[in-house]
């Protein structure tokens, strides 16, 4: 019997792998997701055959409660709030692994060195993921201030908590079943999770979410070691690898090292650049009508969206503007910087929701060589990711950050309320370039005005 159950778990793991493979292309992605869901179904059903399961009341209650909460969350969540939802799901994943490992501990099934260490690891990583994700959620949902929070000596406290946890796990290996030490480990891990995420600023949240995603996978894998379950081990490490890759992509896109993000180190501010010096007398402003006139003669236009666009709920307006231009025979594409949204791939989802075809969404490496053949680049709610200082000014704190080379376009139109700085707190010399025109105003209003002018013209 056990062999058949294990083979069913293997089938489930294969379905997960095939499912993720489906996610490598938009066309096969829906089917991939369904295959993965089917794998989960297989794993859950064969588990119910497990000889240790004698009652079903608690199981049914848990599945009903969890299923309802999950379904409502999935149906109701706004696409702009997706980072918060992912943060919560990461936390719940960590919490589930933590609870499972705790249950195994109190059942006394962990009695050899390997399974005690695995239990300790699942509790430690699971609890850190749980409380850390709740802080990330609170910051993204703006329940608490997004600014970095901390106190002197915080790193020391974190180090003590971490080393204390490791010592606690070691103690449990020597004295299996000591409940006092176990609860101490739980408490230390939960506080550690809070303290690790509190000092991380709002701008770095994409990295944190990706990293916690990875942790939730590693916690599941550790729980798999505790239970000797291959499906958990394989799946957990797949998720762990996925989170880690996304973390490194985000770090690279933000020009931050993972250590800097984790320890809340902001880039050293170089010589303070004077805004007046950058902008004085060089900024030219324009009007929607003027932009429309320019677009009428353009052959190729690239739209550069930032999160400000989504905050203004302007995605549909932008798509309508693009449709109008395409009807006039203008080629329109979108340039998506990896950190354009608030998590990996977020901007793509926001634009897909507004029915922008996904093949028009180009990533940074694809679109950058094409700016030189672009007549007009329209920057909407993006700032730091277009700052040419990242490419040219070695003294700048953002030097080396990969940016969208919008300034290479023949004309750049920046739609923005004012000349205020972005997350990096730096002036953007793009705004003062000879080929740049500023269209001051509300993003959505400006886009609607341009569209109207285009239709009339």
């Amino acid at each position, binding site marked *: 019997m056990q062999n058949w159950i294990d083979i069913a778990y293997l089938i*489930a793991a294969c379905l*997960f792998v095939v*499912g*993720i493979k489906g*996610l*490598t*292309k*938009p066309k096969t*992605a829906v089917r991939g*997701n369904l295959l*993965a869901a089917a794998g989960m179904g297989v*794993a*859950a059903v064969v*588990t*119910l055959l*497990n000889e*240790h*399961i*004698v009652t079903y009341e*608690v*199981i049914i209650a*848990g599945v009903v*409660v*969890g299923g309802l*909460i*999950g*379904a409502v969350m*999935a149906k109701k969540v706004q696409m702009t709030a997706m980072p918060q939802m*992912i943060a919560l*799901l990461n936390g719940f994943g960590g919490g*589930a*692994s933590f*609870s*499972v490992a705790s*249950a195994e501990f*109190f059942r006394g099934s962990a009695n050899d060195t390997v399974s005690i260490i695995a239990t300790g690891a699942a509790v430690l990583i699971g609890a850190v993921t749980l409380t850390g994700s709740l802080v990330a959620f609170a910051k993204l949902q703006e329940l608490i201030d997004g600014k970095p929070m901390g106190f002197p000596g915080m790193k020391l406290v974190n180090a003590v908590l971490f080393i204390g946890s490791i010592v606690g796990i070691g103690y449990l290996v020597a004295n299996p079943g000591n409940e006092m030490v176990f609860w101490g480990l739980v408490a230390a891990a939960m506080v550690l999770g809070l303290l690790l995420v509190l000092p991380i600023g709002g701008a770095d949240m994409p990295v944190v979410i990706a990293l916690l995603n990875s942790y939730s996978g590693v916690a*599941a894998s550790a729980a*798999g070691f505790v*239970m000797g*379950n*291959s499906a*958990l*081990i*394989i*799946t*957990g*490490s*797949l*998720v*762990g*690898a*996925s989170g880690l890759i*996304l973390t490194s992509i985000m770090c690279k896109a933000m020009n931050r090292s993972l250590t800097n993000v984790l320890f809340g180190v902001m880039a050293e501010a170089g010589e303070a650049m004077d805004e007046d010096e950058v902008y004085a007398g060089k900024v030219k402003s324009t009007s929607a009508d003027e932009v429309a006139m320019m677009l009428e003669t353009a052959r190729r236009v690239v739209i550069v969206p930032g999160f400000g666009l989504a905050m203004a709920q302007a995605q549909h307006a932008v798509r309508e503007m693009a449709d109008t231009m395409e009807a006039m025979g203008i080629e329109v594409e979108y340039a*998506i910087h990896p950190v354009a949204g608030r*998590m990996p*791939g977020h901007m*793509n*989802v926001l634009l*897909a929701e507004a029915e922008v075809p*996904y093949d028009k969404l180009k990533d940074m490496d694809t679109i950058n060589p094409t700016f030189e053949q672009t007549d007009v680049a329209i920057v909407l709610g993006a700032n730091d990711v277009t700052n040419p200082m990242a490419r040219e000014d070695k003294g700048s704190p953002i030097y080396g950050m990969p940016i969208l080379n919008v300034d290479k376009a023949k004309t750049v139109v920046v739609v923005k309320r004012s000349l205020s700085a972005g997350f990096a707190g730096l002036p953007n010399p793009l705004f003062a370039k000879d080929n740049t025109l500023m269209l001051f105003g509300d993003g959505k209003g400006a886009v609607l005005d341009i569209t109207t002018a285009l239709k009339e013209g």
Partner: protein
Amino acid sequence: MDFVAQLTLFVLAIFLGVELITKVPPTLHTPLMSGSNAISGITVVGALIAAGSDSGMLINVLGFIAVVLATINVIGGFMVTNRMLAMFKRK
């Protein structure tokens, strides 16, 4: 399953994961994250065993919590992934 066999699985699966995930285009990174949340709900396997066992009240309570959390991940994760992917599918 002995420790070395488990470790072998763990390490090989990480390599497989890296190979697979690097092929996912940036456009699908958000659905990838929600989808991987859903499959990390595989912990439900351990949760079900704890919730349905007769090893005492504390185990059942922990099992119940784990079943609720893991089911939120599974149902919420797959449903929201499906919702997002449907947006990418239409043309």
